[in-house]
Each structure stands twice: as C-alpha cells, then as structure tokens.
C-alpha cells in the first residue's frame, strides 16, 4: 500500500510559528517605535517583491530584470487614483495592481518571444521605455515627480482609528496602516505561492522550469502557465509598488522605476537566500537588511560589498544560504516535495 505525503513535522511547526508571528506582527505597533515599524515595512515589502520574483525566476524560469516596471506603474496608478480621481490612497492601491496587470499583457506578449538572457534584457528595456513614457505624464509631475496632496494623506481611511487606538500622530498612524497592509501583502504572497506550489500547478511549474519540451510531452500547457505566473507576479508587484509609494507619499520616475531598488536588491535577496525555495527570500531579506544597516554609511562600498557577496554565493553556494542549511540539516520549513511512502521505497515506511 502506497501513500502520498507532503506533510512534515517541521512544516507543521513552521505553520504554527508563522501564525504566532503574524498575530505578534499585527499587535506590534502597540509596543514598537515608529522607526521599528518603518524598518519592518521595508523588510515586509522587500520580502513580498522577493517572493514574487522568486516565483517568476525560481519556479517559472522567467528571469526578469524588469520588475521595476510593475512597481513603478503600480505606484503611479495609485498616485493617479488619488490626484486625478480623488480616491483615498488605500482604495487606490488596487488600481496599482490593475495597472501592472494591464502593462504585463503587452510586456509578456513581446518578452515571451525572447529566451534566457534576451528575455531578461527585453524586460529591462520594456521597464525603461515605461519609465520614459511615465516621465511625460505632466499631470503627475512629469520627470520630476510629485507628492500626494496633504488632504489625501491626512484623511487616509483608518488612520483616525489608529491614532485613537495607539495615541500616535497622523504620520505615525499612516506608517502603522502601511505596515499592516504590508503584513497582509506578504502573508498573501507567501501563502499564495506556497499553496500554488503544493497544488498540481506547482508540479507543472517545476516541470516547465526543468524542461519545457518534456513538460509539453506530458500534457503541461507551458505557454499558459508562464502567462499566468507572469501576470500574477506583475499584479502583486504593482500592488506592492503602490503601497511602498503610499507610505513615502512622494514619487518620481527615477525612484518608482529604479532597477537597483526594485530588481537588483530583490535578486540579491533571492540569490543569497536561496532561489526556488520559500525559505530563501525570508532568510535573504534578513541578511540584506542587516548588511544595509551596517554598510549604509559606506556609500558605494555598500553596493560593491553586496555585489561581491552575491558573486561569492553564486559561485560557492548556488542554492543560497538556505540551500546550505537545508542540505546539511534536511530541514524544509515549507515542504512542497511529494513523497511516496511504502514498503519497497528507500527511506519509505
């Protein structure tokens, strides 16, 4: 008698720990200072972007260097919703996701005609073209950018209640709201990707990543799958971009479409943490945050250190830090492996 199992003790323990962490995360603003909340907002949004890029590259085999296009267009769409339509910034965030989704359709149409390195370069070029086009949008400040109107940032939905609840000022309440929304996004992104990988589609994604021809030969619709992954990642990246710039309340094409901030750092996080695992980006973002805190005052040495570290990891530990830990300990906090158990199987029961 054979059985299929994905559950592990470590996986169950992780689920409980994550639940506790999320509850603690929700309650944190009651105890933590504003700077801690701002730092956590940064960590959570970068982690969301990293999980989404990992879904694209680590699971879908789509190494995009143009994710800043979706951060930027998402942020600009949110600003457009607030400035041009008079929407509350929170309600304008979904507009960012929608705009990114719409941009992803023509992007995928052109980029999917390219393979490997050409795909990567193609996505970067599309992001640059989008940046240049957005810089022509005079109503949103053109090339110099603009800020969210004061009346819009003062009256963001829920901030009054947060001020009353925690006894904080308007700006701090806005940070807490943004932090909670970032927490929601990261939980949704991580849980959504985990669910996807444990579903039938997770197998199909891995098959397409490993060998497209073979995947098609067993009935996997590789083209449809790539489209789905690209669109989902783009929309969620757009939502994250909108949230990031709601918190800063200031936007410019250079900041919103910055390849360093929204793609290079994200790739660094995934690569040093461990590509193709959910645990990797979590570990990677913590390492990135620590390095940033320690080295931020050293100017270009900071970037050079990040670059050298990424190269060293790629050369000597291509599965990243989590890959090293996992290989030595056999630990999988988010198990997706389907194991067949039965009498005749090596290591099976």
């Amino acid at each position, binding site marked *: 008698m*054979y*059985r*299929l199992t994905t559950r592990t003790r470590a996986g169950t323990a992780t689920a409980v720990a994550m639940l506790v962490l999320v509850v603690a995360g929700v309650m944190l603003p009651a105890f933590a200072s504003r700077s801690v909340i701002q730092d956590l907002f940064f960590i959570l949004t970068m982690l969301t972007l990293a999980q989404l890029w990992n879904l694209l590259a680590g699971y879908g085999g789509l190494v995009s260097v143009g994710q800043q296009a979706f951060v930027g267009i998402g942020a600009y769409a949110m600003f457009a919703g607030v400035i041009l339509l008079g929407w509350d910034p929170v309600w304008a965030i979904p507009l960012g996701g929608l705009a990114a989704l719409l941009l992803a359709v023509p992007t995928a149409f052109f980029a999917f005609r390219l393979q490997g390195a050409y795909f990567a370069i193609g996505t970067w070029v599309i992001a640059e073209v989008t940046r240049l086009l957005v810089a022509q949008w005079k109503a949103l400040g053109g090339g110099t950018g603009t800020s969210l109107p004061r009346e819009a940032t003062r009256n963001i939905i829920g901030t009054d209640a947060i001020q009353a609840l925690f006894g904080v000022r308007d700006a701090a309440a806005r940070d807490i709201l943004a932090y909670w929304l970032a927490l929601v996004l990261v939980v949704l992104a991580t849980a959504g990707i985990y669910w996807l990988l444990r579903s*039938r589609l997770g*197998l*199909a994604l*891995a*098959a397409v*990543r*490993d*060998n497209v*021809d*073979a*995947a*098609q*030969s*067993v*009935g*996997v*619709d590789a083209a449809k799958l790539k489209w789905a992954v690209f669109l989902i990642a783009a929309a969620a990246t757009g939502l994250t971009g909108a949230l990031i710039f709601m918190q800063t309340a200031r936007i410019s094409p250079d900041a919103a479409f910055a390849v360093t901030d929204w793609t290079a750092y994200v790739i660094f996080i995934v690569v040093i943490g461990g590509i*193709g695992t959910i645990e990797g980006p979590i570990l990677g973002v913590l390492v990135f945050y620590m390095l940033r805190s320690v080295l931020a005052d050293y100017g270009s040495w900071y970037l050079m250190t990040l670059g050298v570290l990424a190269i060293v990891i790629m050369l000597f530990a291509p599965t990243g830090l989590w890959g090293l830990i996992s290989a030595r300990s056999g630990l999988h906090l988010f198990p997706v*492996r*389907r*194991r*067949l158990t*039965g009498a*005749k*199987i*090596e*290591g*099976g029961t």
Partner: protein
Amino acid sequence: MILKLDNVSKSFGALKVADRVTFSVPRGEALGIIGPNGAGKSTLFNLITGNLLANEGRLEFLGRDVTRAPAMQRVRMGIGRSFQIPQPFEGLTVFENLLTAAAFGRGGREADMVDDCARILDETDLIRKANTVAGTLSLLDRKRLELARALATGPELLLLDEIAGGLTEGECKVLVATIRQIHARGTTIIWIEHVLHALTSVVERLLVLDFGKVIGIGTPDEIMASKDVQEIYLGIEV
C-alpha cells in the same frame, strides 16, 4: 487503425525531413522504425506527437484528424513518448516526474494517481528510487524514467525513441523485458531503435526511413532481406 499518416511532409527551408510519409498502425501492434542517422526518425515522432506540425498531409489518431492539434492535446488523447536523450524534470523526484505526467497527461487529482504511479514504478524497477531526485539518476534509471513517465500519461500509443541506446547488454535485456510486458497488455508501440536485436525481439513490423521517405515496411525478416534496405541502411552493396 490507431494511427494513420497520409502523405505527411515536413520541410525546414529547402531541407525535406519528412517526404510524403504514409503508413498506418493497427491497435495493439508494435512497429519498429529504423534508418540511418539523419533519416528523419525523431522528426517523424515529433510530427506524431505534435511537437512539430506537418506542412502537408493528414495525421489521424483513433480516427480523429489531429494534423493541427497541439502536443498537449495529443498527449491527453493517448499519445505518450520518450525522448532519445533522457529529459527528466531534474529538480523533481522520480515519483513527482510520474505524478506530473499522470496529473496532466490524463487529467485528474494527484491523490487519485498515486497507486497507478506506484504500479508503473514497480513495473519499471524504479520503485525503490521513487523519492530520489531525478537529476541524480544513472543513465539506465534515466531511460527507465523516460519509459515510466510516458506510461504515466496513460498512453494508448507509446512512442519510444532509442530507449535502449547507450545501455549495456544486460541493462538492455531488462528494459526489453519491460517493454514486452507493456506490449503484452495491449499498448500499441512505435519504437525507433538502432539496437536491432532488441527491436526485432519485440516488434511485429519494421518501417525503414531514409531522407525522410519510407523505403520499406514489413515483417523484420522481409525488411532484412530487402535489397534496398541492405544497401541504404546496412551499407551492404547488393
């Protein structure tokens, strides 16, 4: 007839890789395909599986015109294949390779496919390595996995592309015995192979290809006795 090709042609520019190929395969038959390197054997497989689409001609599977049908649709209709150079999903385990093939080739829930995948792993002697990552397998096990994964799609027609190539005599015997078992259960097989003794120990008919053309089809004895085949394929001047 389970498969019928009628004047199927395929060209890449000026190069004709399939030239008015016409033949049919009755249900339950094992047909061998031989021909020199570059004769268009693997291209013919790609035309049957839908990895390549024919420029001309008509291809029928189970009485339905599948000439323009994409590869995925043909798999789901019951055409399973192995590749000449094994192409496992290297990051997945052996079992996950089969599970993917079963879930997508037949359509259905993973949980419903477990017993069948385990049975195929048992039959192809891979059951002990079910949870081994496919990228770490030996050549023989990779060949077994090619066969097992194709079987997991639930094929009515199984296409085997040089599955015995590169194996030792002993390994080849084991694999041939497995293929014989599969054929005995009624699965129709088309098998491209250079290891002739392995091929002729299983197939009822042989088809010879040269420069994309069918130059002979018949029983192994008829084909081996044919002057054309001896000249073109075996290089013997008659």
